């Protein structure tokens, strides 16, 4: 008997280890394989039992369910996992193996298409590799949506004794966990993507800057790098090609701003994580002043499938200038939360209501914050907005790292606006005044609005303008998005406070 149980931290947080212990007692002879998560977090821990070569799901499982799962009588039975609506409706390219394979088995990895992309890339010139990424239309998944191939071209063309690939695994945005899930569920994909990037631009060294809040991901990635090195996937002679690439995992230290690429580079160099002015671009003067590709985890982890299936096949998915798939993270007060990968173009409403099933509380949805703490609160009236970079921009929002946080109608939007300012104040790197001081003033000003000071609203609007125009990076520059979207879309929450005071 073969049983699969995720070791993803969301599954662990919901009791996967206790379920595994119970399964070992109920079926002492069974082989229990630990996997990543399929992304259906509301069903975690999701136990899968292989029956005649088909994996049947049971979830959300509790230790008491172990006996029933083993003898097939459990009321938690969901049927074949691949046949579940959530799975069937996806186009899983980046996440194809997550939840399926043992994350630390290179054999499993290769049996499911792993290393095909790297092998193909090793037969190509650096310029051909860069051209393939350009043709795929891949844009950075970390937030800014900058075309990945163009960034790689700059680094490829730069002359230097040493170039670097730096993976941004700082994933600090609330409502996001795609980076975490792929690092815990299919770490070799990220390693393979970084190796292809290195071979493409002529960088022999790489670093993953991984946030300290993710101890499970750090453990899995570190082990995967060791295994990849031992198997010759990393090192002086990558897969016997004569080309070199090696990498290390580096742990962050709990600063949100270190997700900003120049702050990250300073941190990686052992300095305070203060943002650097651009230019110079990191692509030309990045880590230790050398040409550096800085890319998000999902950007890099998507590279192998582009090389495996071809740029065209990837670019066939999507909408407008947003090509390929988006790895949506559906979070917050939502009935069915988790990770859903699909072509760009699906509407916000379909994601929240249809896939997510509305709120977990059963109350009406009030707002959805898209793109993390610097993203706008989208009201239900904007639910027809298609998920795409330009489409969100036109609707006053941003998709960022594609996390969606759902809020029900009990949410006080004034409180959320205040939190956005407070967060900016706590996490500011301190380099520019509009962010460092402005965010503190922002909290105070919102408190005045809450106390019924009507004039303070004009002050808040002005302050947001100053922060937008005078901040060096998007922490200070975009905090006005959540704040002003709350003010303009939910004016009652700011007025009601006033009446209460009167």
């Amino acid at each position, binding site marked *: 008997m073969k049983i699969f149980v995720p070791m993803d931290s969301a599954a662990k*947080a919901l009791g996967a280890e206790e379920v595994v212990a119970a399964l070992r007692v109920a079926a002492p002879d069974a082989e229990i394989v630990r996997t990543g998560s399929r992304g259906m977090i509301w069903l975690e821990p999701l136990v899968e039992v292989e029956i005649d070569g088909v994996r049947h799901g049971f979830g959300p499982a509790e230790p008491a369910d172990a006996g029933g799962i083993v003898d097939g009588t459990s009321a938690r039975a969901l049927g074949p996992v691949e046949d579940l609506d959530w799975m069937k409706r996806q186009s899983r390219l980046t996440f194809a193996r997550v939840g399926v394979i043992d994350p630390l088995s290179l054999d499993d990895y290769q049996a499911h298409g792993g290393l095909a992309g790297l092998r193909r890339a090793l037969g190509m010139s650096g310029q051909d590799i860069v051209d393939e990424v350009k043709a795929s239309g891949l844009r950075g998944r970390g937030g800014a949506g900058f075309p990945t191939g163009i960034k790689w071209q700059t680094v490829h063309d730069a002359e230097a004794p040493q170039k670097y690939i730096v993976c941004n695994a700082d994933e600090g945005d609330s*409502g996001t966990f795609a980076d975490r899930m792929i690092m815990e569920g299919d770490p070799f994909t990220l390693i393979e993507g970084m190796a292809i990037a290195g071979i493409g631009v002529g960088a022999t060294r790489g670093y993953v800057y991984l946030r300290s809040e993710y101890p499970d991901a750090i453990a899995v990635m570190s082990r995967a790098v060791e295994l990849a090195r031992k198997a010759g996937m990393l090192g002086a002679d990558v897969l016997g090609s004569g080309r070199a690439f090696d990498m290390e995992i580096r*742990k*962050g230290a709990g600063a949100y701003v270190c997700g900003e690429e120049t702050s990250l580079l300073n941190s990686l160099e052992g300095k305070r994580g203060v943002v650097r002015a651009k230019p110079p671009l990191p692509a030309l003067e990045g880590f230790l002043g050398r040409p550096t590709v800085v890319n998000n985890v999902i950007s890099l982890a998507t590279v192998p499938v582009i090389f495996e299936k071809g740029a065209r096949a990837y670019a066939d998915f999507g909408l407008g200038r947003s090509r390929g798939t988006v790895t949506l993270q*559906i*979070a*917050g007060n939502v009935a069915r939360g988790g990770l859903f990968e699909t072509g760009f173009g699906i509407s916000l409403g379909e994601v929240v209501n249809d896939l997510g099933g509305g709120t*977990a509380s059963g109350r009406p949805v009030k707002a959805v914050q898209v793109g993390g703490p610097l993203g706008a609160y989208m009201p239900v009236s904007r639910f027809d907005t298609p998920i795409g970079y330009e489409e969100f921009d036109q609707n006053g929002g941003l998709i960022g790292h594609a996390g969606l946080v759902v809020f029900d109608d009990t949410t006080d939007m004034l409180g*959320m606006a205040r939190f956005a300012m407070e967060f900016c104040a706590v996490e500011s790197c301190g380099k520019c005044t509009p962010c460092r001081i402005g965010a503190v003033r922002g909290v105070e000003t919102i408190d005045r609005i809450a106390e019924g000071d009507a004039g303070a609203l004009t002050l808040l609007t002005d302050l947001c303008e100053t922060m937008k125009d005078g901040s060096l990076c998007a922490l200070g520059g975009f905090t006005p998005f959540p704040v002003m979207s709350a003010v303009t879309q939910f004016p009652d929450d700011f007025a009601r406070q006033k009446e209460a005071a009167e």
Partner: protein
Amino acid sequence: MQSPNVTIIAEDFGHLISEHRDAEGALLPILHAIQDVCGYIPDAAHPLICDALNITQAELHGVISFYHDFRKKPAGRHVLKVCRAEACQSVGGDAVAATLLDRLGLDWHGTTHNGAVTVEPVYCLGLCACGPAAMVDGRVVGRVDAAKLDALLAEAGV
């Protein structure tokens, strides 16, 4: 409250430092290594780090104080991090945190009198589809409610 590793001596620091000093950007790995062993960054380690990396005390202090992770003093025997970010707020995380702090009579970053637990805020643990989320010494906990909190605190010896 005492640190479990008061006996750490200069040679141990030296060993931890030399393990990482040749890495590119060695300072964060060194600080993490020391904090992993001691639970904080003791003052006694400062001159050794400065010496090894050829940086000033002021530079070192600047780095240690910039990052939320690094402590200048020991924490309690267990560190309980509670997520304060938006997705956890949307499912009642604020109330959970308020109950916790109230029960322990602490503010954020405070430590219980018996030295059992230090409570810290964290901004997202990547468990945003199963919040409110928390982490005890690196072990993740989802859908935290009053009952789960009680169990966690009991386990931690509060």
